[in-house]
């Protein structure tokens, strides 16, 4: 399961798993957000290509509007998926 929580204005925290069965729900939730955004991955245990697509779409939308988009606190195994896909070279991961 996936939980998306707004911890403060401009920061959301992901908990659980962002897989293909959760991607549509995640996309719907993230499309409601606007302005600079920090996504805290501290509670995210798993991500697949479907989850990456949710993050990429959000990045494109917010960056296109001139907003900052940061990803923070990834577990190494989640960060590896970004690395394998090449997205670690494009997205701001801290």
């Amino acid at each position, binding site marked *: 399961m996936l939980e998306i929580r707004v911890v403060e204005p401009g920061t959301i925290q992901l908990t659980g798993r962002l*897989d*293909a069965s959760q991607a549509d729900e995640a996309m719907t939730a993230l499309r409601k957000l606007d302005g600079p955004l920090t996504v805290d991955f501290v509670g995210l245990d798993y991500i*697949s290509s*479907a989850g990456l*697509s949710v993050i990429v779409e959000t990045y494109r939308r917010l960056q296109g509007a001139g907003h900052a988009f940061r990803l923070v606190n990834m577990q190494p195994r989640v960060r590896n*998926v970004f690395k394998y*896909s*090449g*997205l670690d070279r494009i997205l701001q991961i801290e």
Partner: protein
Amino acid sequence: MPEGRFPRDIGALPSIFEFVAEFGSSHDIPDDQRYDVELIIEELFTNMVKYSADGAPEISIGLERDRGRLVVTLRDFDVEPFDVTKPSTPGRESGTELPSAGGRGLHLVRQVADELHYEYRDRNSTITVMKRLDS
């Protein structure tokens, strides 16, 4: 070899992850490597769901620990061939530096798996993946 049959539906993923977790617990598979196996299976399974919608209602997934490696077998019945071993490096989305989404899942599988084999016979596809286990 433990084998499960799962509906050709993305909604089957939680049941598949449960199947992998149970196998991992009973065969002492480290969490990080179980995660890799879940990723491999999700990407291959969702590919079958997306691109072989007219196939048989269920897809078979088998797991086997063979000494120092894990063998994952996905079998898809009554489908057209789709050779997942053919190289495809994701290109770039037009006008951006972003790697394109197309082929991203199979690209991840090739990064994580140690061996990937494909066989097509009598309208059935069989994908076999080897993943080395840390001792």
